[in-house]
């Protein structure tokens, strides 16, 4: 396999202007498939979630899954699309063993959603509008495993094994219009766009949105043109770039590769490229050819879908608050700084903080506990902070114990450890571990007498008005009570004892 020449990204950007385009496939999480009542479940034994429709047997009739249509409309609405009043399915004809019918049921010139947009916020807050060409309904294909030859790659494979469990799983394919003007931020925008789509479908509850399971898959189109040129360059399409990081890397790599091809005076070949995570590069798939003549025609076994305006508005009314708007609202309500809020989002504790505030904590208290204590412990345990086992109620209770002066902050972290160790509720742990701040004045007075007796010169200083010397006595008392005294109360008692006004 030859290695393609590349230019540095900086040099590529000096000479060329990138144009991007994305096709993102979203697997819906309906209970059943798009056209059959077989279950839509990931990871089951091969060829057990199939029936005659999924296997493309002769004489069978597909029936459209209503929930899948509703999910598709919801996705269209969330992408600010128009929803077609009338649309049909179409057959996309091709021969390949992942599709037993020899055609994929898809939509061609009548997508259910079209003409939308998504405002993408980049890390520094810059907002970039990505225009959506269309979102259409279709079905997923079966899964091929190439056997023999070199390690699962098709080149040199002896045969392939096919599992049709994924065949017929509902898909929505979201296609952007050409994205121009991103410049050197193209790779970052690519990642942010796919992240935004994933977040939206997850927030809608219409997809599990796990990229590692292929619930969200991205094909990235890249072309370059000299600065100032209106006409687009020839594009490549990098298939199945299946992590957010890979999307960014793949776009960056293709820009660098195209730049080197154009610099050498050669035309870019319009072709499919395959992304390789190990080498962080792409290799040539196949060139566009006659084989791309899919001979689409309207699916005669399915009747048109008519989305009445009433139905569309009913669905619109069920849409959750868009993730970007929700973030904006919460940030303002909580009064966090840009940096504080970004840290909260990146740490994945925004929902937990929202719940904690709802349970009665202040925004600052919630952030202090989640960011200051729980995130670090979750990292050590290698789990999501929300999965560590700290409920909003625990935090509210811990904070109340501190505010009531029953325990101090240092003890509170020990109580938190106790909660995580399964020792019980915060109050029970305070009791069991004997962590309560000593508030009974008796033992404190004894300790104060001892400390004053041990340091008579300090006692004298305090008497003569040098109040800052009190720290030495407080320190002695804290030591004697092993940190379980309330320092404020100790101070009061010392002054009382020595007859000094604070």
């Amino acid at each position, binding site marked *: 396999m030859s290695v393609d020449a590349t230019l540095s990204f900086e040099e590529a950007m000096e000479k060329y202007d990138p144009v991007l385009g994305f096709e993102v496939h979203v697997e819906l999480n*309906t209970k059943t498939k798009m056209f059959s009542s077989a279950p839509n479940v990931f990871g089951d034994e091969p060829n057990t979630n199939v*029936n005659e429709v999924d296997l493309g047997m002769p004489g069978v009739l597909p029936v459209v899954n209503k929930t899948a249509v509703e999910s598709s409309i919801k996705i269209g609405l969330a992408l600010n699309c128009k929803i077609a009043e*009338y649309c049909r399915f179409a057959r996309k004809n091709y021969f390949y063993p992942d599709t037993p019918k020899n055609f994929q049921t898809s939509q061609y010139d009548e997508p259910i959603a079209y003409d939308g947009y998504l405002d993408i916020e980049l890390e520094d807050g810059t907002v970039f509008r990505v225009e959506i060409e269309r979102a259409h309904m279709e079905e997923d294909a079966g899964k091929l495993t190439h056997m023999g030859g070199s390690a699962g790659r098709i080149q040199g494979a*002896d045969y392939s094994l*096919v599992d049709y469990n994924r065949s017929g799983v509902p898909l929505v394919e979201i296609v952007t219009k050409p994205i121009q003007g991103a410049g050197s931020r193209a790779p970052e925008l690519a990642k942010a766009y796919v992240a935004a789509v994933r977040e939206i479908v997850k927030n809608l509850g219409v997809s599990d949105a796990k990229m590692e399971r292929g619930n969200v898959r991205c094909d990235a189109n890249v072309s370059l043109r000299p600065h100032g040129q209106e006409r687009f360059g020839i594009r490549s399409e990098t298939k199945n770039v299946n992590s957010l990081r890979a999307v960014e890397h793949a776009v960056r790599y293709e820009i660098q590769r195209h730049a080197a091809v154009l610099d050498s005076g050669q035309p870019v070949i319009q072709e499919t490229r395959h992304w390789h995570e190990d080498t962080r590069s792409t290799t040539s798939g196949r060139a566009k050819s006659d*084989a791309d003549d899919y001979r689409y025609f*309207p699916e*005669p076994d399915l009747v048109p879908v008519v989305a009445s305006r009433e139905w569309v508005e009913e669905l619109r009314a069920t849409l959750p608050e868009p993730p970007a708007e929700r973030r904006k609202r919460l940030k303002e309500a909580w009064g966090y700084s840009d940096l504080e809020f970004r840290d909260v989002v990146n740490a994945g504790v925004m929902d937990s903080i929202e719940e904690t505030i709802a349970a009665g904590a202040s925004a600052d208290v919630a952030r202090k506990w989640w960011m200051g204590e729980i995130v670090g412990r979750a990292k050590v345990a290698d789990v999501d902070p929300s999965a560590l086992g700290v409920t909003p109620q625990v935090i509210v209770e811990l904070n109340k114990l501190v505010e009531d002066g029953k325990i101090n902050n240092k003890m509170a972290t020990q109580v938190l450890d106790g909660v995580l160790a399964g020792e019980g509720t915060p109050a029970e742990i305070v009791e069991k571990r004997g962590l309560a701040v000593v508030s009974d004045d008796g033992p404190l007075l004894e300790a104060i007498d001892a400390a004053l007796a041990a340091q008579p010169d300090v006692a004298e200083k305090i008497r003569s008005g040098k109040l800052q010397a009190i720290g030495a006595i407080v320190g002695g008392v804290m030591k004697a009570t092993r940190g379980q005294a309330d320092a404020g109360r100790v101070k009061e008692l010392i002054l009382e004892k020595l007859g000094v006004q604070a």
Partner: protein
Amino acid sequence: MAAINRDDVAHLARLAHIEMSAEELDRMAVELAVIVDSVKSVSEAAGEDVPATSHPIPLTNVFREDVVGHTFTAEQALSGAPDAYENRFKVPAILDED
């Protein structure tokens, strides 16, 4: 005469993975042209006021509720397969990753 010629037939044959001899291409070009012409007579009958349709019955929104129905066992699914291995269909390697 219909707009279907020998090259069209060769193209379709390639797309359909059908191997055809030179004689077959010649013959099919003529036969398909007749068939296409015959079908075209439909558009003579349909006036401007008749919209194109893809289905003979004026139905829309035939939907199924999202409720799990029947499935095959792997044995049933594979019962008609020419070849199988570990509960999966076994097919010749095809040099095309798409």
